[in-house]
């Protein structure tokens, strides 16, 4: 009997081991490497008790750069020979910096994109007016031709497909949409001095400073955010700002100098 046991025992042990081995998980390797789904984009909700961010962007240093006169070489009767100056840096009498794009870079939910309002660029006197315009991603941007001569809208962009469309004089209005968040430079090849920017926003907390350098972002849900200031020639600056419900926070920035 003991012989029998001594023969059977190892086989039983083997069977046991095999059973355990068979049950061993093989999931320790590799298959778990699939990345988590990316977080969803910006969520639109109603903002009832938001605060606001207001501020003034200024040009530091004693003297504002001299206004650079642009040479008008074509269609002078429509464009006007005089009064064209470079808009690369526009500084007001009390050092306010115009055309600075201000945006919150880290906001995930807030008011609807439609609160940006309608984006309109006019080509008047062979100048893009305004120089910088904000348009919601996927929303319409109206492009007007008040000059009544041939212009073309040539965009320089990476995330959005670059385009170059003619807008002959008889076509007073056309409409374009841009899908991806990006700051797009626009130019007219017929009048090579013309230039501007279309800022495609994926959320509505974008502003452009006015002629005096002031801006305001309204209905911002309470919280701490990073603000980014972008100026076409002077670059980018960032700063933190905390917004409390029902109150106005101040965030000023200074470029150059």
């Amino acid at each position, binding site marked *: 009997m003991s012989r029998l046991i001594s023969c059977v025992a190892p*086989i039983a042990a083997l069977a046991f081991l*095999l059973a355990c081995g068979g049950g061993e998980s093989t999931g320790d390797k590799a298959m778990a*490497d699939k990345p988590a789904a990316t977080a969803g984009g910006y969520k639109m909700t109603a903002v009832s008790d938001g605060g606001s961010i207001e501020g003034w962007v200024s040009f530091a240093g004693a003297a504002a750069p001299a206004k650079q006169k642009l040479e008008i*070489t074509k*269609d002078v009767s429509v464009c006007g020979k005089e009064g064209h100056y470079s808009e690369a840096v526009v500084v007001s009498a009390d050092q306010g910096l115009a055309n600075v794009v201000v945006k919150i870079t880290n906001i995930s939910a807030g008011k609807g994109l439609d609160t940006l309002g309608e984006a309109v660029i006019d080509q008047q006197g062979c100048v893009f007016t305004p120089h910088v315009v904000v348009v919601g991603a996927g929303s319409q941007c109206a492009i007007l031709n008040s000059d009544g*001569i041939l212009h*073309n809208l040539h965009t320089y962009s990476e995330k959005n497909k670059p385009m170059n469309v003619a807008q*002959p004089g*008889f076509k007073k209005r056309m409409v374009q949409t841009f899908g991806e968040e990006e700051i797009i430079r626009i130019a007219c090849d017929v009048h*090579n001095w013309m230039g501007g920017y279309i800022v495609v926003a994926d959320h509505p907390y974008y502003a452009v400073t006015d002629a005096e350098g002031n801006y305001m972002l309204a209905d911002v849900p309470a919280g701490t955010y990073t603000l980014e200031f972008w100026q076409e020639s002077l670059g980018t600056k960032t700063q933190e700002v905390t917004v409390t419900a029902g109150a106005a926070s101040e965030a000023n920035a200074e470029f150059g100098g």
Partner: protein
Amino acid sequence: MPKRSETPLEERNYSHIYFILASLLALSTFWAIWDMIRTRAPWQRYQMELNAQETDNAISELQAAEADFQGNSAEHYGALQQEAMEAKAILEGEEYQQAQIKLAGDENALEDAMRSYRFAKSEYDALWYQYKHAEHEGHTEDAENLRPKIDALAAEVDALKQEWDEAEAAKAATETQIADCQASMTRLQEELDELRTPITAVEDRIQKIADRKIAIQQFVLSDFVQGNFESFLDQVDRCTSCHVNADKGGYDDYAVPFRTHPNRDALLKTHPINAFGCTPCHEGQGEALRIPHAHGEVAHWEHPLLSKDFLEGGCNKCHSSEMRIDHAPRLTKAKRMVYDLACYACHDIAGYEKMRKAGPPLNDITKKITPEFIYSWVTDTRSFRKHTRMPNPQFAPDEAKAVTAYLVNIAKDSRYDAPPAPSGGSAKRGEQLVESVGCKGCHVITEKDREVRVTDVSYDVAPELTNIASKVGRDWLYAWIRNPKQYHPGTAMPDLRLTVSEARDITAYLMTRKQSAPASVALAGVDLDSPELIAEGKAVIRNFGCHGCHEIEGMEKEGKVSVSLNDFGGKTHDELFYGDAIASGTVAADTWDAWTLGKMKNSREYATEAVTQRMPNYAFDDDDATTMTMLLKSWDGRTIGDDYLHKPGALGDALEKGRRLVRQYNCAGCHIVEGEGGFIRPTIVEAFAKEGKSEDAAISATPPDLIGEGRKVQPDWLFDFLKKPVTKIRPWLSVRMPTFGFNDDEVNTLIAYFQALEGMNEPFLELDIELTGAEQRAAEKLYSGDYLSCFSCHQVGSKKPEGPPEGWAPDFLLAPDRLNPDWVFDWIMNPQELQPGTKMPGFYPDVAESLPDILGGDADRHVEALRDYLMNIRKFANRL
């Protein structure tokens, strides 16, 4: 005989021995099974893991589908189920049962009716036969007797037929009644199934995964590679047994072996895995199923898996005839290097027969440089020009003296004569010219050029000129830039059609480009006329093979001085000579890879006192050395089955011939060709920046991108233009298209190349463009300032647009001879499509839609009118 009980039976207890032996047996069995399942079959695990993971994913999908069903469809489903219950009740109801019973009765009745009819009919047919037979035999009486019987039977048959029809109608009516009862049930069942489809689909998938067999996956490539006995051998690849998702989309972010093949859409579409397998590109041991065996990383397997650095060499097995291989940038670079650096000058390389000599002729050398310069150059080229394309001969002083003596001696017969350059010239104007006419497309002239330059190779394709005045004299230089072919008929240096004053200014400028301290040279006291020294020089040149790249008098009959490279990659490490490199530790291991890498980095690496090495030194950096090693590895002498080889076809041949010519003349130095090149751009941006002009302005002042050229222009025009490129197409460019002095063959090669890039082969283009009256009227309107304002940018002969020339667009008067009308149509329709980034804006189809009064507002008709007018514009030029 003793009693059994007294018999001394086995008294020792063997149970511990049995236990040990049984344990051993058990252990070895266990080990065998373990080895079978675990060690030898990792693929089983991978497949099981994949199935488990996919099942898990499917189960979560199933849960989501269930949740979705509960949320959205459950109520509707319940209502439908209720209806179905009712429909089912009908099917189980009295009426339906009765109908079923009736149907059975009807069927029996029908059977009976049919049978009775058939019996009656056959009786009738028999009688009818008798009747006819009697009639035929002339037994009229008998026939007459049969007649009433037949009539009676005919009536009976008719009656029975009617009974049959009635029975059939009754059965059909009952069936309709039953079908009506069933129809609503069927419809309801379909609707119910439809609602469950998202769930059942996932369930089916789970079932399919469960049904999958865990099995070895393999592809058989028949007649893939030639074996040792002429015949071609099959190759079996089982790689997908582990690399389970290689040819399945959607696993790009997974880890190996679960990952989808990188760039699968492009690569596996053209190389289907069932036809090309894996090892033809990747190497490894296709049949094996264990790592490292499968990867071939075991002793004596000659072709282990190619590492990332060498991977593109795999493409070369079948793509050896091509110079540019899509998705293989490193291989493409390697092929360019072989061409530029003229490896074929000393080595036999298949596909590189009858090639040009890569360097200048040396028969007139003393007219260009001094003996001292020759001496210092052949001693060490790189101390004078760090990035020179010429490999460094690194001659020892005695060799260098001898070579100098030989070259100086043959140049005594030189008939080349550079007339003295006109005196004067403004270096400042020369500098401006050098920056604007296009010299920097090929040459580095300032330190800044070196900084901003971006090219596709690490050496210079044309000589650096930062210290040119330390090398050549003023007279030679002037004559050279005025007419390079006079000194070197085969040179790639083109004629920029410089005027006397331009050439004088450029010469003046270049003569300011010199090295501060000229290299000190030891030729003093050397008798360069000594016949022994000259003879020794000849021997050195013959031995080192200088004639491979240079035309040298007295060397005309010499051949290639080194070994064939066609099977170099197939050499085993013991066929290679390591010198002292292993002992000294400069080469890490005695492997083919390490040897070749070492050789590429320093071609004299393995020289010893006893064994000299002749290969001139390319001294590649790590990246270039790896690139060349990769290519050499791919030349392993294996013969691949014909079915697997890439066959370029007529268009492919045209492409390859063209690519070599484009490379030889460095077209990509100025132009963007096949999406690459335009190396002159940063230097123009730099020159514009010096004058305070913008980058945009600089970019519009760069030579054109040649995208679509083959379809854009007429072949006849291109022929004339390439021969004599004097037509100024873009008057705003100061950079000039030079005259290369192409012969007819070369020009036709280039035309065929540009056309082949567009998939075309039309050396003669038929032109037949008629302009109707209606088209003319429409076009005149559209061209005008009130509509498309074409003349706002485009020049028409002497009528120029407003503003500075850099804002202009090409002269319309060139179009009829130059442009292909098909291209013109597409261009006006959508210029961005043909040349992304062009300044020409798109007008259509928007413009046509806004102008319904012109040609019905039809975009096609608008553009046709614009094109036809343009192709006939000369007729109207004087009234524009």
